[in-house]
Each structure stands twice: as structure tokens, then as C-alpha cells.
């Protein structure tokens, strides 16, 4: 890492007072010097991982999950351009992805035009349509942030979702519209007949759009979006129009949402009203917030975790939406930083070299807590089975154990597991807190 003199790195217009207090001997205050290797490393690693993944998980269902994950990543990152970086809460963002996807679908069905373009650039058209819609809506919705913006986004979202049933020519009514991606001009001989080819297309777009969104967040407009989020009044005094800054973020976010819609169209070859409705908008909010809005990579983690949760849990239980709701609500209440925030909390600990002191306290608290939660989940599942199971069908399987849900024994066992597990977790929590404080203190007796 090249260490440059911090004093020359301070941008023009920075207050001289900061220049004086910047102490080169304290690394935390030094301006981040532009080390190309360090900046590029995560991107290179991510690309390599994306390229290798299909060789590790070769079956088709894994590919399907990874495709869905990639699409969600692009969408969640686009959403976070609004929520995390711009401080604008949108309840109707699925509309831009959906409209982008529908536009791509129509292009797919225009066989004359479609056969002259390679499939790989189709998402650009989706992005342009998403951007166009965002420009129209943003023209009046970005005047305010906060509640008013959220309400307009909800209203416009509901409006367009309702229109999808009425305007059959564009949205295809109830059954949606479908197309065939293979009619595109072959791209270096690849016709995208197989799922694996689609995967590499999607993965390529994930890297490209993530990189572009990251670069956007480093531009002056992206930086001003942060300023406007934190203090619009002060940004106005600095001579920036907070409305226009919000507008630019909104339009850029619309573009990338449209790209994700285009990827959806390529992957599934069908789009329906479901891609536009409020439920999809809600899910993307959930994904982004779960991952953490405070960091650029937060939505990526959220998309991966949520897709896994959705596919794995929905295979094993009918109640997965209920668990997702509980998880979401507890994230909002207890970890507003999301998963990324939780991860980043540990950076100072690692910097102090005390991460190893945390392992044992974590094990002592989190392991019983996890077991206790499993007990609770078993109780929930048993209650559900007891109430809604078919009459006569008393057998049920929870956590690889099959038993009769109408006898007392399993209830006692699950209740005891839940009580003991959570009890131990509660008893060891103070020790964990002490260990955490100790690990976050420099020096000390370790």
C-alpha cells in the first residue's frame, strides 16, 4: 500500500482547521490513499468466485438459485442507491424493474429487431426504460424526501401495478407476456440455450452493474446524495439543489432496477403482474434492510442470505414467510445496521488483534441461543400442524424427527429445549458483553 502524504491529499475547499488536526501518525484520520490493488481486490475476488461457482455447484437447481440471487443483487443494490445512499424510502420500486423487464420482453417479441442485437445487451434496453419511467415519476416525486416521497412511491407503484391488469397491450393482463431469448443474434456463437450460459451472462451483468453503481457512489453526485440524505438544508446552503441530487439518484437507481428487470426477462422468459406489485417492492426493501443499508456491500449480503433463506426454508416449511417477517422485524428493532453492520462491528476487534478472545464467549451464548430458537421454531411448527393439519394425520416431521403431534411428549421436549437454550443464552449474555467491551478496548490485560 502506497502511503502518501495526507496533507497533499486533502481536497480543495476543505477547511484549514481539519488540515491542522490531521495527525499523520494516526492511521484512522489519514485520508484513504488510492491504492489500486486494495480497491480492485474485492472485485477481482468476486468475479473469480462468480466464475468458479457453477463448477462447484453443478446441478440445475443450484444454477437457478444463483441466477435468482444475481438478479436480486442487482435490484437490491439499485434499491440501496435510494434507501442507503440517498435516504429515500420507496415502497414501489418493483415498478421500475418490472417495466424494464416488460420492455425487454416486448423487444424479445419484435423478432426483426431482436435478431439484430446480441442478447447480452438486452438489459441495457431494460435499464433505459426503467430510467425513462424514473425520469417521469422522479420529476414530481423527488421534491421531498421522507414520508411524502414514500407515499408517492407507494401510490405510483399501486397505480402501475393496477394498470397492468387494465392495459393488456403492454402488460399482458393476468397471464403476463412471455418470449424466447434464443431468437437473438448469437453472441460469439453462444445462443443461450442452456442455463449455464444464462448464468454467465447474469454474473457478468452483476459485476458490471455493481462496479458502475460503486463508481457512481464515488462521483460528486453520489457523494452529494449522502450529504442530502444527512442534511438537505446544509447541502442547499453549499449551493446544491437537494431536489436535483435526489432526482439524479432516483434516475440512476431506476436504470439499474430496469437492468435487473431485463435480467429477469432473460432468465425466466416470462413477466407477470407479480413483478410489479407491492409485494415485490416490499421484498426488495426487506432484502436491502436485512443486508444493511449503511454499506455498499450490504444489499449483496442481504440478497444472498434472503435467497438462500427463501429457497431452503420454503422447501422445508410452509411458514417461511412468517420466519422472514420475524427476522425482518428483529433486524429493524435490534440491528438497524443489518448483517453488514454486524460484520463491520467486528473490524475494530480484528484491528486490535483481539478477535480470538471473542470466540469462546460467542460459542457459549450463540450456540444455546440457536438451539433454543430451534426449540421455539419446533413449538411454532407443532402448533401450526395441530391447528391446520388434516384430520387423522397426526404424524409430523420437525428437525429430522418424526413424531405424533397430538401427544404431550414432543411438546414437553421442544418446550424444555427452548427454555433451557434461551435460559443459558440469557445467563451467559453479560459475560459476552464484558468480553465484547474488553475486545474493543485497546491495550488492557489480554
Amino acid at each position, binding site marked *: 500500500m502506497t502511503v502518501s502524504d495526507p496533507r497533499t491529499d486533502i481536497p480543495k475547499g476543505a477547511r484549514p482547521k481539519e488540515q491542522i488536526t490531521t495527525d499523520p501518525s494516526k492511521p484512522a484520520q489519514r485520508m484513504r490513499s488510492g491504492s489500486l490493488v486494495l480497491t480492485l481486490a474485492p472485485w477481482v475476488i468476486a468475479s473469480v468466485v462468480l466464475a468458479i461457482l457453477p463448477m462447484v455447484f453443478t446441478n440445475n437447481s443450484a444454477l437457478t438459485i444463483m441466477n435468482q440471487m444475481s438478479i436480486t443483487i442487482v435490484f437490491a443494490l439499485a434499491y440501496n442507491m435510494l*434507501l442507503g445512499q440517498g*435516504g429515500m*424510502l420507496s*415502497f414501489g420500486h418493483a415498478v421500475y424493474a418490472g417495466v424494464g423487464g416488460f420492455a425487454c420482453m416486448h423487444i424479445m417479441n419484435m423478432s426483426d429487431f431482436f435478431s439484430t442485437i446480441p442478447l447480452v445487451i438486452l438489459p441495457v434496453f431494460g435499464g433505459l426504460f426503467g430510467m425513462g419511467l424514473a425520469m417521469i415519476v422522479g420529476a*414530481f*416525486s423527488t*421534491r*421531498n424526501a*421522507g*414520508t*411524502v416521497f*414514500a*407515499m*408517492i412511491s*407507494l*401510490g*405510483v407503484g*399501486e*397505480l402501475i401495478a*393496477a*394498470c397492468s391488469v*387494465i*392495459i*393488456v*397491450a403492454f402488460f399482458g393482463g393476468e397471464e403476463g407476456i412471455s418470449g424466447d431469448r434464443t431468437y437473438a443474434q448469437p453472441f460469439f456463437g453462444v445462443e443461450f440455450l442452456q442455463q449455464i450460459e444464462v448464468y454467465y451472462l447474469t454474473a457478468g451483468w452483476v459485476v458490471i452493474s455493481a462496479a458502475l453503481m460503486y463508481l457512481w457512489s464515488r462521483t460528486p453526485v453520489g457523494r452529494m446524495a449522502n450529504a442530502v440524505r444527512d442534511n438537505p438544508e446544509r447541502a442547499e446552503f453549499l449551493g446544491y439543489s437537494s431536489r436535483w441530487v435526489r432526482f439524479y439518484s432516483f434516475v440512476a437507481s431506476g436504470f439499474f432496477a430496469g437492468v435487473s428487470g431485463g435480467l429477469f426477462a432473460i432468465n425466466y422468459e416470462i413477466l407477470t403482474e407479480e413483478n410489479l406489485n*407491492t409485494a415485490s417492492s*416490499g421484498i426488495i*426493501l*426487506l432484502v436491502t*434492510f436485512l443486508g444493511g443499508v449503511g454499506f455498499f456491500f450490504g444489499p449483496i449480503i442481504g440478497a444472498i442470505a434472503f435467497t438462500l433463506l427463501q429457497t431452503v426454508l420454503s422447501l422445508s416449511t410452509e*411458514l417461511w*414467510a*412468517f420466519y422472514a*417477517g*420475524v427476522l*425482518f*422485524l428483529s433486524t*429493524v*428493532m435490534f440491528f*438497524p445496521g443489518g448483517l453488514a453492520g454486524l460484520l463491520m462491528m467486528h473490524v475494530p476487534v480484528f484491528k486490535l488483534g483481539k478477535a480470538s478472545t471473542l470466540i469462546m464467549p460467542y460459542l457459549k451464548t450463540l450456540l444455546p441461543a440457536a438451539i433454543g430458537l430451534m426449540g421455539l421454531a419446533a413449538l*411454532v411448527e407443532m402448533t*401450526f400442524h395441530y*391447528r*391446520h393439519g388434516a384430520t387423522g394425520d397426526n404424524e409430523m416431521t420437525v428437525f429430522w424427527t418424526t413424531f405424533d403431534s397430538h401427544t404431550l411428549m414432543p411438546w414437553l421436549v421442544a418446550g424444555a429445549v427452548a427454555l433451557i437454550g434461551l435460559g443459558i443464552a440469557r445467563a451467559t449474555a453479560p459475560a459476552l458483553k464484558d468480553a465484547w467491551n474488553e475486545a474493543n478496548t485497546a491495550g488492557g490485560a489480554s
Partner: protein
Amino acid sequence: MDLILVNLIDGLVTGLLLFMLSAGLTLIFSMMGVLNFAHASFYMLGAYFAYQISLALGFWMGLLIAPLVVGVMGAGVERYGLRRVHQYGHVPELIFTFGLALLIEELVQFIWGKNQLPYAIPDALNFTAFAISGNSIPAYKIFMIFISISIFIGLLYVLTKTRVGMIIQAALSYPRTVEALGHNVPLIFMGVFGVGTALAGVAGVIAGPVLGTFPGMAFVLGSIVFVTIVIGGLGSLWGALIASLLIGWITTFAKSYNIEMENILTGLGISKPESLDDSIFRDFWSLTSPQIADILPYILMVLILIFRPAGLFGKRSS
């Protein structure tokens, strides 16, 4: 003329029902500055609780007890949920209520299943009150109007004429000053939240038998309620009343009079294209008013937000 009268009554019922929800929501908004996305979920809970109670104790006890239970739950949500999230700022608060709405819907499905419940109008009210030239008006509709209007008058009386109402109004505008005068402002907030959700519960109890008691009922009405208070002006009780009635009447009239876009367009002097099948405007030409009745409130809201962002009666723009 007779049909107009019938529609006026139908629209009034819908509007007053909306008002019972939007009144609580708008009070909560002016108090905490946060839109409660879960408000309609409390309406749904009201209907479900009332159904459960009516199985054991009959409809009238359900009407009495269910709103109380819902109100207590609402107060609990404020005390242990929202107050905790409040420290993180407005956006997490909105997200919290949004997540709560999702969770309550899942919870209701978990307990009562996904099917519609057989929650029916009580026998005492299941008769025709009167008829307007062959269109019978059920007594239950009159009962709904009666309940909603008495709640509105009661709310207005409490808020403007009693000491408690004065303190609440003062706490909405100047919480710090009221706190300095020795009133327990957090308790007031909790109470207002509880009363607001209890009102939603009442709406659920009386609407459940008519509109159906099913897990999607919060979602169906929820977004319309937001639209209502945005049109009326956030935080304005009168605005909520006017907007509720407006939306109630607009949607009812749009549904019962089949106004076709074709007639409007030809009336404007635009000639109809020869074959509609390959025109991209074919859906536009075949549009009818019952088709768009449900999205009219959203169109109205977007227009209001563009041209008068504070709403019809709103004073401050946030």
C-alpha cells in the same frame, strides 16, 4: 334519481368506514410524524378477534371487547416496538411498521388459516331497513353509519371540549412544553396510539361481516387508507373526513355508472380507429369506469401530491 340516492348511501358507508381508519392514522401521524403501515392490520385484527369472541359471547360482546384488545395491543406496539426504533430515525420507523404489517398478516394466517371466516351479520340486524324504489337498504348499513358518525362526534368532542383533548392537542404541537408543564407525554403518545388502533379495531369489527374476514383484508384497505390521509392532508382530522367521503363516493359512483372511454373520446371529436385489434391504444378505447374505479383514489392522490403537496386540508409540508 333513486339510484343516486342508493349510491349516496353506499358511498357514505364506504367513506365513513375509511374515515374510522384514517382518523386514527392521521392522529398517530400528527403525533409521531410517522405513517403507521400496520394500521390496517389492526383493523384486520379487530375483525378476527370479534369473530373469535362472537363464537363464544355473541356479536355485541365482540363489538365491545375486540376493539379494547386491539387498542391494548396497539399501545404495546408503541411502547415496546416503535419507541425503541424511534431513536434510529424516521425511515426505520416506517420500515418497522411495514414489517409489522407483514408479520401480522402472517400471524393471522398462522392462527386462522388462509380461508375466509364465516363471520356474519348478527340476526338482530339482518333485515331490510327500508327500500328506495325497489333497492333495499339493509339495516346493517344504517347501523354502520350510525356507529361511525357517533364515533366521529365523540372523537371531536373529546379532542376539542375536554381537558384530556386539550392536553393531547397541545402535546401534538409542543411536546416539550407540555412535558415541562408536568404531563407525561410518552404516556399520552401511547394512549393516542392505543385509541387510534382501537378505532381501527372498531372499523374491523363492523366491516368484517360485510367486506369479508380474510387475511388479505388489511392489504385491500390499507393502501387506500394512506391515500385518504394524504389527499386529506397529513394530520388533519377534517381533511381525513372529507377525503374519506370523497373516495367513498367516487369509487361507488364509478362502479355503478358504466361510463365508457369510447363515449368520452367520440364526444371529444376523436374518431374511433377502424380496427381496434392492432392499435396500441385498444385498451385505452375499451376502458370503462368500473374497471378503473379501484385505481381512481391513486390517480387522485398523485394529482394532489403534484399540485397541492400538503393535501386538501394540510397546513404544513413535511
